[in-house]
């Protein structure tokens, strides 16, 4: 390797790429983390919901010609599908061992992939970067695609909205209480089933939003969720299952770890994430922000 060209500019650029990639990882992990944190369900269909989100984006884009409509309507459509799944598939499993819901979502993932293959074919579909967001920006230390900077902005906006919603509203208070002790909440007269329905829908919509955001960066195809599921799990496990703050910190850290590995030992870039996960789990088995003993 040619170490001579490893200058500060390149390292700064690589760090920024890591943060940008980390923002994508945060987006991927959020939905998974919210559903697990509130409902205790490990959603194995998460990666494929991400994929369906990208296809929903293509679907809306083809009909309206507007990326902004796709960005808004895609997640809403898939979120609505999530509501139906919670009401008619997840809820009947209430009170049964958590493995049942896990298996259900695992199977659901396959159904989603096959459904998309039937509706859209098994080849990839193009999704052009929106005109107003294409091109590169000069960051002083190097060039970076404007679209990826936009993605960082959207993820930040989603995080602020979620934080305000959970920490500063009455509804958020109820949701947090529901995650801690659903029984007490039920005794207090809160319709907790109704609450879970909407939390599940939100988690699904977030996964789908991740898919629409990823579509202009990657090719849209029925298998695009496979890699994502592993990445999302690694991030949530590192952050601590069910911890939102954990997902954010872990997502950014993983992005930086992957990026720096790509600079120094590129062929190890994919493994770096999982090596990092193993390391974190050795030191803190519950993840960075997880509560000890919390989990399935």
């Amino acid at each position: 390797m040619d170490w001579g060209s490893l200058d500060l500019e390149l390292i700064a650029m690589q760090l920024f790429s890591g943060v940008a990639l980390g923002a994508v990882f945060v987006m991927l992990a959020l939905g998974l983390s919210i559903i697990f944190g509130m409902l205790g369900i490990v959603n194995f269909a998460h990666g494929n919901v991400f994929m369906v989100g990208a296809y929903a984006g293509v679907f809306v884009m083809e009909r309206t010609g507007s990326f902004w409509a796709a960005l808004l309507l895609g997640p809403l459509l898939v979120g609505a599908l999530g509501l139906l799944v919670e009401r008619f598939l997840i809820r009947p499993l209430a009170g049964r061992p958590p493995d049942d819901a896990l298996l259900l979502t695992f199977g659901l993932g396959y159904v989603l992939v096959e459904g998309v293959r039937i509706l859209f074919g098994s080849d990839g579909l193009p999704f052009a970067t929106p005109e107003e967001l294409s091109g590169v920006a000069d960051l002083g230390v190097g060039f970076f695609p404007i679209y990826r900077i936009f993605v960082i902005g959207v993820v930040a906006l989603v995080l602020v909205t979620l934080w305000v919603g959970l920490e500063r509203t009455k509804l958020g208070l109820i949701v947090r209480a529901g995650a801690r002790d659903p029984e007490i909440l039920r005794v207090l007269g809160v319709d907790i089933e109704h609450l879970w329905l909407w939390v599940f829908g939100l988690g699904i919509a977030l996964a789908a939003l991740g898919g629409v955001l990823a579509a202009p960066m990657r090719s849209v195809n029925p298998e695009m969720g496979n890699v994502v599921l592993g990445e999302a799990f690694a991030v949530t496990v590192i952050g601590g299952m069910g911890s939102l703050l954990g997902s954010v910190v872990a997502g950014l850290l993983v992005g930086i770890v992957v990026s720096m590995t790509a600079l120094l030992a590129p062929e190890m870039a994919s493994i770096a994430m999982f090596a990092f996960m193993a390391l974190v789990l050795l030191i803190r088995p519950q993840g960075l922000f997880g509560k000890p003993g919390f989990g399935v």
Partner: protein
Amino acid sequence: MGQGTLSRRTLVAGMAVAGALGGIGRARPAGAAETIRIGFPTPVTGPFGAEAKDQVRSAELAIKQFNDAGGLDGRIAELLVRDDKLNPGEAATRTLELIEKDRAHFIVGALSSAVQLSVNEITRSRKVLYVSISQSDTINEAKDFSRTTFHEALNPHMTTAAVAKHTFKKGVKVAYLVADYAYGHEMLRGFKRAAAAIGAETAGEILHPFGAADYSTFMPRLRSMRPDILCICNFGRDQANSIKQANDFGLKKVARIVVPVLLHNQRLAAGPDAFEGVVGASNYYWRLEDTVPSAKAFNDAFRAAYGGAVPTDYGAYGYAAVRSLLMALKAAGSTDTGKVVDALETLKYDVAKGPEHYRACDHQAVQSVLVIEAKRKSEMASEADLFKILEVEPGSEAALRSCDELGHRA
């Protein structure tokens, strides 16, 4: 089975009936000629599914044409397609099944180089004729070769030499982004060999994990190498994703992007803007019909069979492999492996892209290599008008590595 509704006796009786039915299905009326069965393992699902499905469609067209023309003295052929899932172990199992259980006479197929070698292991040990349609240099080499091994696809040596000849110049700096598995390594080796002969310099090389979805973290370093040419050696969706992201990062403004093999389906999947101006080799592009009569005939038959669609690069491999095999069968007048091997060794065929033949020492198909460039959107006359043909390198044994170098002793 704790319910007791399905007793062992019922089960045994059921199995007996199923066995008898199977027997009926297998019995052939006396006098009717046995169908010629061609086993076709290829990864119809997964990341190379688009290319694999084109192989199947074109192979089926070749079978149909053979049967419509009366088959082998009335014996018709059929294609037995199996999903190898892009996995060498799976491919070996499916191939063994095709030979032992389905009693396939011949095997054609595979798309990934590692999988093809695994199929070849099986066919070689069972002395079954195999025509590979996956890009590979190794299969030509003496250690993997056998008398029943044929290779219709181009090999990395041929494609990289053609692309380098057209794009590399003395003193230009080339940066390589390479998928970290057999295909990428073979392509890199081919390019570096050609670069050394031409006098092009290596600005640097980065190996990326196979199947990576995000290439953003490789871009700053590639850019810092200040290359004149960015050479991306990967396949399938990796090609679409990496070219798309290199374009997003503005690399096309500072370097020319070249690839060993420019794929029809990946260009379709990524859209015209991402691929615009990218140069690569190909075994086949449908616009060859403007100059080559057999390409016109192949396209017309394909259009008629598949609602006006045009065949793709990997489709042409499937077609040429099955057609040449069936031609050899007719010449041999039999399905006997030894006789068909002899016939295939001496066959001159022109089924889709001009004259081809299998070289004697390694059974590599000697054929033309196209150098093509992806068109910009405004240049496209139709949805399928994807590429400009820059060059057609005529087929010649001189373009292959010598029999000696491959370890074949006369």
